[in-house]
């Protein structure tokens, strides 16, 4: 099998698994998860094989693995679709395959496979737990298996298909298809517990918000196709003539070049998908879904897809960029990224729900990547994408494990508390050691803890690029946001794992099964080691020990190879100071937080804290600006006025007029003329028949007499009338 064939096959197993589970195996839970995990494993093996080949392939950037087939006949020739693995997709394939497989395995434990069925569980609601009697006859509540277990695996398999399709596509159109498949799946999975009104609302919100971005992205794709006549990545991005032409032509819109306009349109798609300001509102609400979904959406797949698409289109985004200063579209991208990074970090500080903190943290980290791309830091953005995927998947799965352990405690004690609120936790370190240590690694990586963690290297690279490119505003805002990141991460770890249990449920929390802890350990491994592949050779002391493999490999994706950064001490020191400072600050404030006490920030920050906790009222503002007007528009204007008054009115008046004409015709024409004539014919026939029927006696012989008379009459007439 050639490597190209193998690439074609990578997205196939999850898709087949989806159909298999959906059509055949959905009654059998064990079979369904075996099919899904098996498919993920097949894709994983394929991806690893491709990754290995790609790494050992000389000059992969110049001669990537690609193959294409004729797909859609267009005016002159064919629209070709195919697969492409260049360094960027190879690296993406690597982390996607790992995280997807881990998330699939984790889901088995998360949905309580092997536990009894709950008595009151019903499809569309999270399982309530089942009562079982132990050997002494005491009743215990234990977690119960998810009622729609198979459905979940079918959906995540389809989700994985979307991501693999997106990564191996060689053109924007099939990439967009994978993108939309994921959009659909995220809608289905966020609304997985569809009987919860909040989950339904969150699913609709996520779908509608990303739709805004996707429409603009589609416009960008159409614009690009009409400008260049192709959507193939290599033909557009690896072709200086096309890029120059796009950068040179004016779009006639706000003075942007064609490349700038397309770049901004595509960027709006990323804003929606990767939850950047101002379309970030859906992501925190997406926490309504089961936790593996959060990890799928926030780490491995969907939001990474947004940034991946941007990195993929990097030459287009930076077309016309001379290397210093920023083009108009790059400034917009950088601004949005930086603003999002700061803004989401601030909100994350005040959130109490363990998953919501991570959701805002995800938004902020994606803001980092977008900002890096806006500054033209291609390798740094890709690097952070990879490391972030690992540690954020780890953190989400870890938080799911925490919630799971807490739910166990809640069921045991039958206490009525929110198992996701960090202020109800505390002291879980000893109860859940695997979860604690892996979560700690993920958290340190997220906050950029010095040297050992992956997050440090990738974040440092972004900061160094910002400093080296003399984007001082960007640099300072990102440093501030990194400080906040370290602070809220330590706040989260302290509140969750350190100190004493603040509720009895937390005291009774229990470590989760191996299907959940094993993925955590694997992801923790990558959260540390993924960073070592990209250590800058100029880094003091450590630089040069390990080759800067990531940089060398990934930069070949571009035509103009970016140079490694000269390491400057200021960003490095800033990075170390904010990370350690934030972590110790968080530890100082929260490490011994007593039960029932308010958040110390609440008292010190006052009204600003209330704003933060309410996410700066973005939901309310959008409710007022967009949701309510569109409800008003659809209900009052479209429904009541246009539909009821205008269209119905027209139809009703038409009906009344028809009715009037019909009645008129009936009384004045149909009844007297047509019916009259018909009746006349009928009646006269009847009368004639009545008068004639007396001769029908039924007596054969009378008939014969009549016939005889007639014959004689005719004969006589005939004879006498002869001349």
């Amino acid at each position, binding site marked *: 099998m050639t490597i190209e064939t193998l690439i074609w096959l990578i997205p196939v197993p999850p898709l087949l698994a989806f159909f298999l589970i959906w059509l055949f195996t959905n009654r059998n839970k064990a079979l369904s998860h075996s099919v899904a995990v098996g498919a993920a494993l097949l894709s994983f093996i394929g991806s690893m094989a491709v990754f290995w080949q790609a790494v050992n392939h000389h000059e992969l950037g110049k001669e990537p693995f690609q193959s294409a087939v004729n797909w859609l006949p267009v005016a002159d020739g064919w629209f070709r679709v195919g697969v492409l693995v260049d360094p960027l997709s190879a690296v993406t394939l690597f982390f996607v395959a790992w995280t997807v497989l881990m998330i699939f395995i984790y889901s088995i434990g998360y949905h309580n496979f092997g536990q009894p069925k709950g008595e009151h569980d019903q499809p569309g609601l999270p399982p309530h737990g089942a009562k079982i009697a132990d050997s002494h006859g005491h009743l215990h509540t234990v977690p119960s298996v998810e009622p729609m277990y198979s459905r979940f695996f079918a959906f995540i398999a389809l989700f994985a298909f979307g991501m693999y399709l997106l990564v191996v596509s060689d053109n924007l159109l099939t990439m967009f298809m994978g993108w939309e498949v994921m959009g659909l799946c995220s809608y289905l999975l966020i609304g997985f517990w569809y009987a919860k009104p909040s989950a339904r609302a969150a699913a609709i919100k996520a779908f509608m918000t990303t739709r805004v971005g996707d429409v603009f992205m589609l416009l960008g794709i159409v614009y690009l196709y009409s400008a260049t006549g192709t959507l193939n990545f290599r033909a557009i991005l690896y072709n200086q003539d096309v890029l120059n032409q796009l950068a040179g032509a004016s779009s006639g819109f706000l003075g942007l070049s064609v490349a700038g306009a397309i770049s901004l349109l595509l960027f709006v798609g990323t804003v929606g998908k990767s939850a950047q300001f101002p379309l970030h509102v859906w992501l925190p609400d997406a926490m309504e879904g089961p936790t593996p979904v959060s990890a799928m959406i926030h780490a491995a797949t969907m939001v990474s897809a947004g940034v991946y698409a941007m990195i993929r289109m990097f030459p287009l985004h930076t077309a016309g960029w001379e290397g210093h200063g920023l083009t108009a579209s790059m400034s917009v991208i950088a601004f949005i990224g930086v603003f999002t990074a700061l803004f989401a970090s601030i909100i994350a500080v005040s959130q109490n729900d363990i998953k919501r903190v991570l959701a805002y943290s995800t938004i902020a980290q994606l803001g980092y990547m977008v900002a890096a791309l806006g500054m033209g830091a291609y390798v740094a953005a890709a690097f952070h994408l990879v490391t972030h995927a690992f540690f954020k998947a780890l953190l989400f799965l870890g938080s799911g494990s925490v919630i799971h352990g807490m739910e166990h405690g809640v069921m045991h004690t039958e206490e009525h508390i929110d198992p996701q609120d960090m202020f109800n936790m505390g002291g879980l370190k000893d109860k859940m050691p695997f979860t604690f240590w892996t979560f700690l690694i993920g958290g340190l990586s997220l906050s950029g803890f010095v040297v050992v963690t992956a997050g440090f290297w990738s974040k440092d690279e972004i900061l160094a690029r910002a400093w080296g490119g003399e984007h001082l505003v960007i640099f300072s805002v990102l440093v501030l946001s990194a400080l906040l990141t370290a602070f809220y991460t330590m706040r989260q770890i302290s509140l969750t794992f350190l100190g004493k249990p603040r509720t009895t449920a937390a005291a009774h929390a229990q470590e989760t099964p191996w299907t959940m802890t094993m993925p955590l350990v694997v992801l923790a491994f990558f959260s540390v080691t993924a960073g070592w592949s990209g250590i800058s050779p100029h880094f003091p002391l450590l630089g040069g020990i390990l080759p800067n493999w990531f940089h060398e490999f990934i930069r070949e994706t571009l035509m103009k190879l970016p140079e490694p950064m000269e390491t400057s001490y200021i960003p490095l020191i800033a990075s170390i100071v904010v990370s350690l400072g934030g972590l110790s600050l968080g530890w100082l404030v929260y490490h011994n937080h007593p039960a029932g006490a308010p958040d110390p920030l609440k008292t010190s920050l006052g009204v600003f804290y209330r704003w933060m906790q309410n996410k700066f009222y973005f939901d309310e503002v959008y409710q007022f600006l967009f949701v309510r007007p569109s409800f008003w528009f659809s209900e009052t204007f479209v429904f009541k006025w246009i539909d009821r008054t205008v269209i119905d009115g027209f139809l009703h008046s038409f009906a009344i007029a028809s009715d009037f004409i019909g009645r008129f015709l009936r009384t004045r024409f149909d009844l007297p003329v047509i019916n009259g004539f018909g009746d006349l014919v009928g009646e006269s026939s009847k009368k004639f028949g009545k008068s004639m029927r007396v001769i*029908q006696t039924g*007596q054969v012989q009378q008939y*014969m*007499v009549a016939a005889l008379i007639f014959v004689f009459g005719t004969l006589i007439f005939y004879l006498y009338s002869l001349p």
Partner: protein
Amino acid sequence: MVPLSWYLIFSAALFAIGLFGVLARRNVIVMLMSIELMLNAVVVNLIAFWRYGDTMKMDGLAFALIVFAVAAAEAAVGLAIIISVYRRRKTVLADEINLLKW
């Protein structure tokens, strides 16, 4: 040689008897027999005209044969109908077989 008119008178008489039988008798079998009489009158007519015409032409004889054949068929069909009517209605009287009246 017996003149032709005698045959014709005989034949007319036979026909009239048959006609009377058909019109006046109530029994359907008798009516059928009367019809046979009328047919035979016709055959006598045919043979007589042949005999007093051109005897070298066979058309008169052929005609007579066809009439016999028709008569035989008619008798067979008629009797069958009568039997089936009788089985159903237990009568062979024409004035009682009056389903076709208004």
